[in-house]
């Protein structure tokens, strides 16, 4: 009966056991390093001066705003690639109240019109492959807060 059962299984158990064994050995080794998921983050080497970004907003009227992205140790480019090298080159993603509204390939970008009320603007520096930059263990991002008047100027 056991022989019938084993014949029924065939080579599949050996193959699966081999595969699972390999994964059980490999996964802890890779995951032991920790670190953020590479699909989302591009970790810059510690020897590179960490980029920074500060955000300033000027009202343009009609609920529209011009954002000035004051960056250091970072170069803007409009060239995107699928696999970027770990370098402080890329663009910025602009989020308003948590939702992405634009990509800034230059340090100045216009957004809006925004609805009246308070808005939180997040600017996250991204690599050329859209992954969020991490420098010295932290994401490179800037924030500002806008209050759009009821009657837009």
């Amino acid at each position, binding site marked *: 009966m056991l022989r019938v059962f084993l014949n029924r299984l065939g080579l599949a158990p050996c193959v699966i056991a081999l595969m699972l064994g390999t994964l059980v050995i490999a996964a802890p080794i890779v*995951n032991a390093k920790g670190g953020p998921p590479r699909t989302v983050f591009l970790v810059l080497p510690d020897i590179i001066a960490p980029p920074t970004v500060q955000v300033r907003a000027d009202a343009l009227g009609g609920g529209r705003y011009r954002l000035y992205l004051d960056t250091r140790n970072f170069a803007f480019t409009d060239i995107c690639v699928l696999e970027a090298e770990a370098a402080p080159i890329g663009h910025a993603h602009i989020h308003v109240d948590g939702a992405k509204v634009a990509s800034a390939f230059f340090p100045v970008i216009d957004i809006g019109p925004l609805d009246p009320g308070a808005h939180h603007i997040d600017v996250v520096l991204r690599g050329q492959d859209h992954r969020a930059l991490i420098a010295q263990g932290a994401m490179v991002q800037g924030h500002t807060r806008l209050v759009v008047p009821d009657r837009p100027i």
Partner: protein
Amino acid sequence: MKRHIFLARCAAALPLLFFLSTPINAHEAWLLSPAEIEALSQAPVPELFRSPVWLGLAATVGFALTLAALGLEPVLGRLEDRAIQPIWKRYGDVGPLVLRLGLAAMTLLAAFGGLPRHGTEAWTVSTFLVPDMQLTDVSGASILIGAQAMLAVFLIAGLATRACGVILIALSLAGPVIFGPSFWSYTPHFAAPGLILVALGAGRLSCDHVLNTDIGAYTAAPLRQILWRMSHILIGAGFVYLGFAYKLMQPTLLIAILERGDMPTFGIQMPVIALIMTGVEILCGALLIMGRLVRPVALAILGAITFLAITLGETPLFHANLYGALLVVLLAGRTVPIAHRVPGIQWARAV
């Protein structure tokens, strides 16, 4: 209701899944907000995914369950044959039709930017087969856009379908050349539907059938079986790779996306759910590669991706290639009937 009518209606209703989910979202990293991304950047890899003991235990449980399922394979096979009997004669018509329409929707929307990457306005940027692969600054983009649009038209019409399958395989292989190694994670799941189209053709509801232009309809049965098995191997290999590279090695991303989708946890901790998902994906992929439990695996994966699509609120159009391919696999099983257009079909059991 008679069983065969019920099953036929179920198969016919499958395309409705495409319209069940309203927002155009994918379970991809790009939909996370800055706050979620920041939290993700600091999230530690769960102990479950770092500990050889826990992973070994999980692998042992997965192995035992797989052995049990393999032991039940003959019983399941009889049940499958009985359940599928009323509609299996039409698998060669229903399956390829769903697959063709799904692939056509994907390629047509991609060509005109209708399936954009999250954060990109619809109909502004053309993509190549999947939302992540934007055709901006790609030399020859217009050719790829045209090729996708033409492919969609031919697939909808069911004209020169086997040639369309070859073109789809070629496009999936061109992806890594154009976009780099990242595209290899998509290649198997587009090459496999291509192989299925080459092996099966368009089915009865097609111009190929009406105009009698299906030049490969009487392809040698052994060649058809080889193509059919290759498609299973590719689908399985794709799942094993995705499970390993994206889930087992980046569990925090999977957990963040599941948490964002407010997926029901039934009281189970999220890392445990992530590990179960990972294990199921890898084991199902391995079984498909080996050609074992093919129908149950196809059903399990179809159920899983449908559940995820509904709970995460993403459009199933992002996975139309897999829905179509797995439906055909579910209907036909491990082997395809010899010359399915010829009356008096005989199953060719390769076991």
